[in-house]
């Protein structure tokens, strides 16, 4: 597994750049991660609402939610999610929140 320096800390990430261990994440890492994933900074309160929701879902259920689940449960609509995290809200928010890539559907 490669390691990467984020906010001055060596973090283990997978080939796609997702955290291997969500416990290694700290709030200071969110902005540098956002820059890395192409999420517009500075992060707004809405961004943070999503990031916190992603982490709590991950720790409760073992996987981050998909966009549809985020739209139904996070209090942020799907449309807004795409404004906050253009391209792919679930993937980009997982990247910024330091959790593994949400378990894709096959």
């Amino acid at each position, binding site marked *: 597994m490669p390691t990467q320096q984020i906010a001055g800390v060596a973090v283990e990430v997978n080939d796609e750049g997702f955290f291997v261990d969500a416990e290694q994440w700290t709030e200071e890492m969110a902005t540098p991660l956002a820059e890395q994933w192409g999420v517009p900074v500075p992060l707004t309160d809405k961004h943070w609402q999503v990031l916190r929701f992603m982490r709590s879902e991950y720790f409760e259920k073992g996987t981050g939610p*998909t966009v*549809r689940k985020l739209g139904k*449960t996070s209090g942020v609509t*799907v449309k807004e999610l*795409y404004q906050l995290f253009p391209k*792919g809200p679930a993937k980009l928010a997982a990247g910024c929140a330091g959790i593994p890539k949400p378990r*894709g*559907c*096959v």
Partner: protein
Amino acid sequence: MTAVAKKLVILGGGTGGTLAANRLRKAYDAADLQIDVIDQDNDHVYQPGLLFVPFGLATADEITRPRQRQLHRGINYHQSGIRSVDIEADRVVLGDGMVIAYDVLLVATGSVLQPNETEGMNGPGWLDTVFTFYDVQGATALAAKLDDFESGRLVINIVDMPIKCPVAPLEFAFLADWYFTEKGVRDDVTITYVTPLDGAFTKPTAAAALSSLLNEKNIELVTEFNTGEVDGDAQKLIGYDETEIEFDLAVVIPLHGGSPYVEDSPGLGDELGFIPTDNATLQSLVKPNIFVLGDAADVPASKAGSVTHFEGDVLVENIESFLADRPLEAAFDGHANCFIETGFSKALLIDFNYETEPLGGHYPGPVGLPLLKESRLNHLGKLMFQSFYWHGLLPGRDIPGIGAGMPTAGKHTAATAD
């Protein structure tokens, strides 16, 4: 033996509900287990056949049979909608208000199409310029449309996962290429495949093989497109990032969710109406006496008939264990096996599970059907499967040499790749 029969209620008389009912009927005397199956209609559709309907290769009648006739003697069939399940009281409320109590519940109500969850999808243009082939009505209407369609832009669009049979939209694209070639108008039709995924398919090795096949057939691939709106009047798909894709004919795969009664059954399902289910045992995570088979489960396997079929073995064994108060030992590995029709009487075959992505080689052993490679043999396999479905799979007969677990003998794993 118990003095009073235990009651098993099965919600859904499709692939999963039918095969489970038949297998369990064989395993238990009626004096020990009463089996009731509930479904809202009496039309059992062989869903893989829907792919062929738009191209005039099958009709709705040919792929539909009565649900009740697929169930063995000694199974009670109720044709009724389902209002809700009371998981605390172990009972089901039917559409007409009738209440059925159970000792064990099997949820096998699959998934439903939700075109109304995407802005504009079933608005102006629906069944005129915008179609789906994922239900009988849509597939039949699309057949008439394709018959008239001689030139223009055909766009095939998956809104979001999960969907039933994730390879079917690709098969539709391949068959459209064949269909318009046969009609002599292929040069006048552009075919574009628009997916929210970052490749042609979810699994990397198969995605690479399938995207080169799209390329060979001159089908344009647009990835990471997130459909926010379908505008049937202006004839365009509009992404959440406001990019637009114009079409003359859109074939869309709407969002999928669980059956509507799940939402009215407190504690039973998740946000999308699927049932939280143990990936291995197929016991629900909501209550021990509730099991889940097929598309209704939230397990990370394809929503496909082959998965339901392979789950069947595990499910039946675990329901037997549950009824006997034994630990649930049978474990499902996520095995899926899909023929991918590629047109011109050829097909690919892919075989995979939770852990192993689709690989090249042969199935089920070194001598067998070629994997990840176009062949006529696979096409014949796909065609023959319909007969096996009605006469083998649903009645609960096994295919000789084909077990529930994923085989590895004939596959090119990292160590054996050529």
